[in-house]
């Protein structure tokens, strides 16, 4: 696990230094929220309508931002064949996958936490149940990243990898998006944690299953 943290710290250090991925993700999420904000400017401040719109707008933004982040997650490793450098280290390939997963979740989570207040400002809307919302977003992001990283490792060497990734990713993350959208809607409508327990359970199970499967399969994706 310690080795996974070293990989995650290395990834975050390189990303905060270059800001290649962060800048793209922040700009993209800004554009999405601003476009929706302009489109629905008539209903800004209308709590009932926004409660209906918010889950969809937020998760559209999160899903697309995740695609950008995930598609770039292995770009540093491919350059100079650093992935072979990692494979030469005395670590299980699962530890490499876990490290990449931790850093990608962290980066996406940072962007998502910037989107929430922006959404609140654009729609003149006071977000309720922030701790519950943070939990949903965290689990949803972890679910998307678990599957996405495996697909990214598969597609990174193909010529049209960045085009292929969303095509493969979106059908697989439907079981994450549905409970995430439903539970976000319930929390924004004033629900409590007990109202979203089924959705959280579903998200949790998805994360565990796909983490285990992806960790095992990851070895085969980076083999020559």
């Amino acid at each position: 696990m310690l080795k996974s943290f070293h990989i995650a710290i290395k990834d975050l250090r390189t990303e905060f230094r270059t800001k290649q991925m962060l800048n793209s993700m922040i700009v993209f999420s800004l554009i999405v929220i601003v476009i929706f904000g302009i489109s629905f400017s008539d209903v800004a401040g209308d709590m009932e309508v926004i409660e209906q719109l918010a889950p969809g707008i937020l998760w559209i933004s999160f899903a697309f931002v995740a695609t950008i982040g995930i598609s770039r997650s292995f770009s540093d490793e491919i350059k100079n064949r650093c992935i072979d450098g990692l494979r030469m280290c005395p670590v299980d390939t699962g530890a490499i996958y876990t490290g990449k997963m931790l850093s990608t979740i962290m980066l996406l989570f940072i962007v998502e936490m910037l989107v929430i207040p922006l959404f609140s400002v654009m729609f003149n809307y006071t977000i309720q149940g922030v701790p519950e919302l943070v939990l949903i977003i965290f689990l949803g992001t972890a679910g998307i990243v678990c599957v996405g990283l495996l697909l990214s490792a598969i597609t990174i060497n193909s010529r049209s990898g960045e085009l292929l990734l969303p095509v493969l990713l979106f059908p697989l993350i439907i079981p994450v998006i549905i409970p995430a959208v439903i539970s976000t809607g319930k929390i924004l409508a004033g629900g409590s944690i007990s109202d979203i327990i089924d959705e959280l359970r579903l998200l949790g199970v998805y994360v565990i299953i796909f983490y285990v499967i992806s960790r095992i399969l990851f070895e085969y994706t980076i083999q020559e």
Partner: protein
Amino acid sequence: MNSIVSVKGLHKTFGGRPVLSNINMEVSSGEFVVIFGPNGAGKTTLIKTIATLTQPTKGIVSIEGREAHKHSVDVRRSIGLVSHDTFLYDSLTAEENLLFYGRMFGVDEELLKNRVNQLISDSGLDMRMRDRVATFSKGMKQRLSIARALIHSPCVLLLDEPYSGLDPEATEIFNNFVIRDKDIRVKIMASHNIENGFKLCTRAVIVQNGKIVFNRQKSDIGDAEDFELIYREILGF
């Protein structure tokens, strides 16, 4: 003499096409084996297979008596690999790259700082240790790449075409750096640079079409010119 690296009956095929055929090789402590051969002869595949990066189709590679592909995680502690790809992160500094790889190899944190300083000094990069690798020349990157490969004090150093892109001065600095480390018990290098390769080796091996066609101690060959004649004769040009 007990061999540190042992390759027995190694075969490797890619999509049904044989790349290595029945490779047998024993490398003992103190040896510097240089594998020569034209492009596509199978040198890189052989180095990668010894390094555990590529699975053999058939045959066994052992490092210090341990079967490399069965105990790959453990065996990698004994191997340092320098390739024409540097395995270095451009946006990290030289020091950060070495610290990262040292931690990945589980080098003790206190020892690691000293080891990093020593290797950076040996590679002549003291003044640039806190600069990003992206700003380095090819020669500097290659020297840092050796430092990276030596960070965990391996007993086997594998070098795959390390001279590509290096000018004569950088090559000389690189050679001195490789020769200097006395902790390495075995060095195996793949190269098509006969002059440099023969100067460094204690044994020369020629690979052609995935087979070892020549394997002899340097003392039995003569000088570089003699070897070049043998090389040309074997390869038929």
